[in-house]
């Protein structure tokens, strides 16, 4: 016990020195560049190294599987069954043509009509387009995270050691570093915006507010080791416009806001989020709603319209899907933001799930668990495309305009364009869709059957 005493102060000294060194390194390599918006390129080198390691790991697993003569489980992104893209009308006409010799243009009911509904139903049970959008995308090659591994039994010793090393690096080095950065970023944001809030309104306040926001978001970007590639930055949203983007996670906000100055829209939360929100709105006019106000669509639309009509106000950032989708598709855009009449600046965000899947499965993970998962991934890699601005044409209504914007975003990001509502994550589908199907089928069987009915 007494032998430890002289070592005690040595240990304390070493600890003190290493913390100081760490902090200085942190400051020089991460925080200072964040403040000025420059980059040393460390993250890009990190990314390239990781890619090489992943490729090696995948080859090893494939070799292991081949040695044991087993087929490897490979996830298929494009679905597992062949689906005929024929419609109800086409299929039923075809069945009638082949089945009975009756004239094609007499609409009537056939017992064989049931085959269409039956097969379509079973197809959706085996593989449907909607439910798979609400869980994380499966990766084609392994990225040394146990959370994405489907082929456990083919891992060699070398691979296991590598994985163990990865765990050590991620949890013991990267995680504390990232938490420290996140803490710095958030506290700077809260204190910075509060301080700026005391200044009188004017050019100076605006300038400082913008730079405080940008600086803190950039620190947060580094806290997640996010490697972002921005494309077409000349199309960045301007004042008086609305920026719409596809939604995959709360990190989307940080990614966009670290490259531009936006007015946020959202519900006021309690806890830490609420503190951050209340501080932010002191420095610059964000649009926060109380929980009760969110349901009132009219009020929401009114406040947004007021905001965009004031040309001095910042572009609004909105995610019209209303919920997080897993970044393989874009789901229905809620028409509210498209009715306001402002210029829409679409933005497509595509994550590369190889380094860390950013999708927030809110039914599986809470916010804290989610952030921890993010901070223990390798990195968050994504591409952001700023699309040219769009306005509503006179002949289209809000829904058509919303769909047009959605298609543009889906096309640019390489995502599947779906008409389904993201709200189906939690809610049942509306009966109206079933009624549409029934109506369509009714048209096919109602006709001149009156003269064919016998007494």
């Amino acid at each position, binding site marked *: 016990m007494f032998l430890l005493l002289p070592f005690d102060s040595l240990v304390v000294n070493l600890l003190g020195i290493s913390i100081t060194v760490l902090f200085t390194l942190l400051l020089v390599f991460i925080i200072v560049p964040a403040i000025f918006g420059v980059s040393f390129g460390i993250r890009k080198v990190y990314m390239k190294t990781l890619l090489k390691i992943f490729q090696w790991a995948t080859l090893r697993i494939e070799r292991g599987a081949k040695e044991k003569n087993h087929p490897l489980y490979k996830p298929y992104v494009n679905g597992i069954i062949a689906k005929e893209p024929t419609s109800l009308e086409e299929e039923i006409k075809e069945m009638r043509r082949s089945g009975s010799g009756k004239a094609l243009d007499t609409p009537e009911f056939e*017992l064989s009509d049931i085959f269409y509904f039956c*097969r379509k139903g079973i197809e959706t049970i085996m593989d449907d387009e909607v439910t798979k959008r609400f869980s994380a995308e499966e990766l084609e090659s392994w990225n040394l995270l146990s959370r994405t591994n489907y082929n456990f039994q083919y891992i060699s010793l070398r691979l296991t050691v590598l994985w163990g090393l990865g765990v050590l690096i991620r949890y013991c080095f990267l995680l504390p570093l990232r938490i420290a950065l996140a803490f710095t970023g958030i506290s700077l944001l809260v204190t910075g915006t509060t301080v700026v809030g005391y200044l009188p309104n004017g050019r100076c306040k605006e300038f400082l507010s913008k730079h405080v926001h940008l600086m803190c978001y950039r620190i947060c970007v580094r806290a997640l080791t996010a490697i972002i590639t921005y494309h077409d930055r000349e199309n960045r949203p301007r004042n008086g416009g609305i920026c719409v983007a596809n939604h995959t996670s709360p990190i989307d906000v940080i990614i966009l806001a670290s490259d531009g100055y936006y007015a946020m829209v959202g519900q006021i939360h309690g806890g830490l989020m609420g503190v951050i929100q209340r501080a932010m709105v002191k420095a610059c006019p964000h649009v926060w709603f109380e929980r009760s106000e969110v349901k009132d669509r009219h009020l929401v639309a009114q406040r947004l319209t007021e905001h965009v009509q004031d040309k001095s106000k910042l572009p609004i950032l909105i995610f019209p899907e209303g919920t997080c989708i897993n970044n393989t598709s874009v789901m229905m855009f809620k028409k509210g933001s498209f009715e306001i009449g402002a210029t829409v600046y679409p933005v497509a965000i595509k994550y590369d799930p190889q380094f860390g899947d950013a999708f927030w499965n809110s039914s599986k993970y809470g916010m804290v668990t989610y952030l921890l998962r993010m901070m223990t991934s390798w990195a968050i890699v994504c591409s952001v495309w700023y699309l040219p601005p769009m306005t509503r044409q006179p002949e289209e209504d809000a829904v058509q305009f919303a769909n047009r914007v959605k298609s543009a975003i889906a096309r640019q990001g390489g995502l599947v364009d779906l008409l389904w509502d993201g709200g189906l994550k939690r809610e049942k*589908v509306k009966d109206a869709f079933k009624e549409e199907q029934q109506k369509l089928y009714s048209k096919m069987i109602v006709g001149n059957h009156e003269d064919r009915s016998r007494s």
Partner: protein
Amino acid sequence: SVSHSQITRLYSRFTSLDKGENGTLSREDFQRIPELAINPLGDRIINAFFPEGEDQVNFRGFMRTLAHFRPIEDNEKSRDQNGPEPLNSRSNKLHFAFRLYDLDKDDKISRDELLQVLRMMVGVNISDEQLGSIADRTIQEADQDGDSAISFAEFVKVLEKVDVEQKMSIRFLH
């Protein structure tokens, strides 16, 4: 026969539908699939998975029902005639469709049952009288033994020219 990877994939699908994570699916688990919920015959199809009087289906039952939709491969046609008929034979596929109509499982499609299924398919868009005459005509055309109901044999006869194998088969992509 079903390959190893196809079984793995279907098992993966089964577990993703099994929200309660207890190894079985309930009717609610199926109804959570939006494209199935808007299918006019969705409920009848879901029903086909559940054996008489039961509310849960395990993976075995799931696979068994889906097996009806395997394509009829050529080599299976020449398999031994002594073994039990495979689930995906033409006859069994027709039987699956027959059971969608036969609500009370008495091996006959009565006028009432046909009316009920028709009502599911057309919703509120056709009147009772019109629907009634459609049902009457269909039974009249199919009925051969004069009992005003369609038996399985009569059902098969009506559909003898239809390419059942193609209409009631689902192919895996890999």
